């Protein structure tokens, strides 16, 4: 009979669980906690979804004027370098 973790102990190990950085033994202990504790199951599920929505978000286009100034600065730098050779 494995001793069940408290929710606080579980939360401390949440990242290790999410990032799969646990040993098989630790993982099964964490897994048994989730199976028994609906609140922690919800926390795991919604944290995974939080990470997923951020990973999946496409960055917005750089505003055109900002991008143009970047490219202009870069062209100047490139010209300087060639001039200096």
């Amino acid at each position, binding site marked *: 009979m494995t001793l069940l973790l408290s929710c*606080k102990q579980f*939360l*401390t190990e*949440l*990242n290790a669980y*999410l990032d799969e950085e646990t040993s098989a033994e630790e993982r099964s202990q964490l897994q048994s906690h989730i199976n028994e504790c609906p*609140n922690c199951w*919800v*926390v795991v*599920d*919604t*944290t995974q*979804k*939080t*990470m997923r*929505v*951020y*990973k*999946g*978000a*496409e*960055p*917005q*286009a*750089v505003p055109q004027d*900002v*991008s143009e*100034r*970047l*490219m202009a*600065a*870069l062209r100047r*730098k*490139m010209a300087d370098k060639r001039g200096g050779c």
Partner: protein
Amino acid sequence: MQASNGSVVFDEAALVERARGGDDAAFAGLVEQYQRKIYRLARNITQNAEDAEDVLQDAFLKAYTNLGKFHGDSKFYTWIVRIAVNEALMKLRKRRGDKMVSLDEEIELGEESVTREIAVWDGNPEQTYSQEEMRKLLDDAIQSLKPTFRSVFQLRDVEELSTEETAEALELSVPAVKSRLLRARLQLRERLTKQFKRKGDDAFAFL
């Protein structure tokens, strides 16, 4: 060099090799590929459009100047992210002036262990909200974090750097990255759950 939509294979290593050989068009291709991500990172860390533009320019100009020092033992992307993070943190510190931004303060997963909002999400928010609405919600949530949590989350979970790479870029210890990441994830989860929870679950909110 329209590779971001996946229709053209983007070969980072080949472009870096050409750029290192003096091919400026190849370097411009790298800028084209990564400017969106670097700009987002700069905005999220500095929280300021003007600073973000400076960071964007300075990071790519520095990378161009120092390309000879890039040895290809990490990805170019990881390298440019690190340069941009350094620039962004310098801006942040300058702007905060005396209120020195310390990324290294002690963090504990204390009593308010930020899991008050226990509710399942209502389906897939990506399908419910437009890309524009989603972006706004995610940006607002990330901006509510303290700089120290924001930077760690940005690098680990948005830019997908490893714990070690994040630690190196932010000059934090590995355990410090881990504890900040946990807090950041839980705080974001809390905020997004408020937004995305199944509405029927509100019935239990007063309990």
